[in-house]
């Protein structure tokens, strides 16, 4: 009978203590017939049947996305208010920081470290130019709009700030009727013309295409329209109605009664509990936790204590119950705790 203990970096011929959570006594007993190819093929067939049944019975979710057009038609005031924050540089994206904007103090930090800031702005976005002024400039045959654009872009920064502030006040109480945005009069210069034209452009659907960053006909990058839409409250409201908000475990859910990304439960869990659920650095804190946990899981075999948990739990006795039934009672009585029913 051979004695072979498989170990990491075994020193040849050198005796040392057997470590039950790292070493094994390699098998020299009997073997049973097994068919690897058959097992994989049967598994494939079983999965295929289950998948076909689930696909027929449950199908899959496919709700249409919110577009700038659908948003501005469903919530025109929210659109106008959001557009104004993009123009005056107070929106979420305009003040986001890296990788979109150079905003002093923006960017999440973990202790003294901010990888976000260290990497810097790699997807530069100027919300006034990219979301408002440049798309408006693509509209043809609108002399009043062209004049307003010229006046706004030719004005001093202080003048523009004054107009923006004045319009911010009136748009907060705006209404929408007969296809027009209705705001009170005020000293907002050409800004009213800009926003009302952007509103009509959005409602026609023209703004969706104009927001795409690609100058080519074929576009695949939807960063700008998605960021613009996400700055409004309409998308978040729609997500809330579907129980997809962050505090509703939104990252792992999907529309309808589908399981979604259930495997993200632990990642989503951290967003529900303090301090991450209220922290301004919550995202980087959750990611740091998940990175550490993933590393711990991968390196579990190297970590004393953690690698002994399976032996302490004794679930293995259930898995190898037939094997242990064949062992001597003398040995079984000395084995780690486990389901007694599996002892002979």
């Amino acid at each position, binding site marked *: 009978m051979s004695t072979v203990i498989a170990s990491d970096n075994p020193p040849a011929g050198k005796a040392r203590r057997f470590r039950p959570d790292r070493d094994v006594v390699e098998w020299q007993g009997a073997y049973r017939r097994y068919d690897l190819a058959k097992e994989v093929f049967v598994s494939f067939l079983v999965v295929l049947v289950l998948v076909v049944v689930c696909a027929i019975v449950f199908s899959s979710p496919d709700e249409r996305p919110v577009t700038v057009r659908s948003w501005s038609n469903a919530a025109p005031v929210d659109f106008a208010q959001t557009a104004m924050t993009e123009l005056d540089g107070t929106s979420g994206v305009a003040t986001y920081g890296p990788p979109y904007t150079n905003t002093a103090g923006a960017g999440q930090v973990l202790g003294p470290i901010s990888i976000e800031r260290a990497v810097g702005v790699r997807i530069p976005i100027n919300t006034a130019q990219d979301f408002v002024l440049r798309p408006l400039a693509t509209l043809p045959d609108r002399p009043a709009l062209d004049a307003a654009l010229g006046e706004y872009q030719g004005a001093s920064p202080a003048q523009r700030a004054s107009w923006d502030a004045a319009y911010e006040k009136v748009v907060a109480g705006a209404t929408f009727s007969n296809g027009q945005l209705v705001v009170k009069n005020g000293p907002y210069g050409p800004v009213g013309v800009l926003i009302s034209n952007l509103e009509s452009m959005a409602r026609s659907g023209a703004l969706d295409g104009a927001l795409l960053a690609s100058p080519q006909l074929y576009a695949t990058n939807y960063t700008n329209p998605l960021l613009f839409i996400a700055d409004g409250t309409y998308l978040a409201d729609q997500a809330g109605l579907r129980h997809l908000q962050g505090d509703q475990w*939104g990252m792992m859910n999907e529309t309808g009664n589908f399981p979604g990304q259930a495997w993200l439960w632990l990642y989503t869990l951290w967003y529900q509990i303090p301090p991450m659920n209220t922290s301004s650095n919550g995202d980087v804190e959750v990611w740091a936790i998940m990175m550490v946990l993933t590393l711990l899981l991968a390196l579990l075999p190297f970590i004393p204590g953690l690698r002994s948990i399976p032996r302490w739990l004794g679930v293995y006795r259930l898995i190898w119950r037939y094997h242990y039934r064949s062992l001597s009672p003398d040995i079984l009585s000395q084995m780690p705790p486990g389901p007694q029913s599996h002892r002979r």
Partner: protein
Amino acid sequence: MSTSSVEEFVVVAEKATWTGKIREKAVTEFPPDRLLPDRQPAYVASWAYVFGALSIGAFIVVMLSGAVLAVEGPAWWHKSNVGLFVNSLHLWSTELFFMFMVVHLWIKFFMAAWRGRRKATWITGVIAFAVSIGAAFTGYLSQQNFDSEWIGTQAKDGINATGAGAFWNVLNFGQMLMWHIVLLPLLVAIVIGIHVLLVRRRGVVPPFAPTEAQLAKAGLTLTTTITAAASPPLLQELAEPLPTGQPAPAEPATTPTQEPTAQAPTLREPPPGLSREPLWKSPEDKS
């Protein structure tokens, strides 16, 4: 050229060429009966073992359904009932893939399946799980519907916070689609392939053995000589297979109360470097 000259040439060629060295290494590490085994140790007798194969089965369905979706393009399933059905196959095979993989992971944890130089097998399994999460995530981002829109605009903050968002833009549909249908599936397939090869190389982890202290209480001692040539697959070749699929009535190597000579299975001669000492000895056993 004489026969001996031909043999000499073959030997020299094996050692002198990259191809020869790779072939020699591959055949040594993965002989056909280890790569595609038709027998397993008797302790491999539980439903717990099927979840690895089920994960692979689900992964195959994921890849096949994804390939069909790729044939018609990303917009097809939004406007075609057949496309929606194929997308549903893709979704549910993904759900099952993760379910089986998670169960497989837990079972391997309960087995402490990293024991006996199987750490790399465990680590590649964890990596496969992590990369699969990325593959599934980019799939959700590539759906072009409300789910992908909401998930993308929410997830950007987490990705950006790590600094990765500057290079890996979850709002860039084209970038996410390419990662989803090319790079990540390839990576998942490679990692799963390495994982499976490691399983075949090291074999299925044996059950926990009693510790020295536990054996001592039973009046037995454990031989602790570590042998450099302790390769599990090599040992598989030493043992004769059972003629039928019946579980072993009593494993000589794990039955310390009986005399080794009386229990000796029909073993071949061990290769150089392998000891042939009893596994467990009682104090009176001096052989």
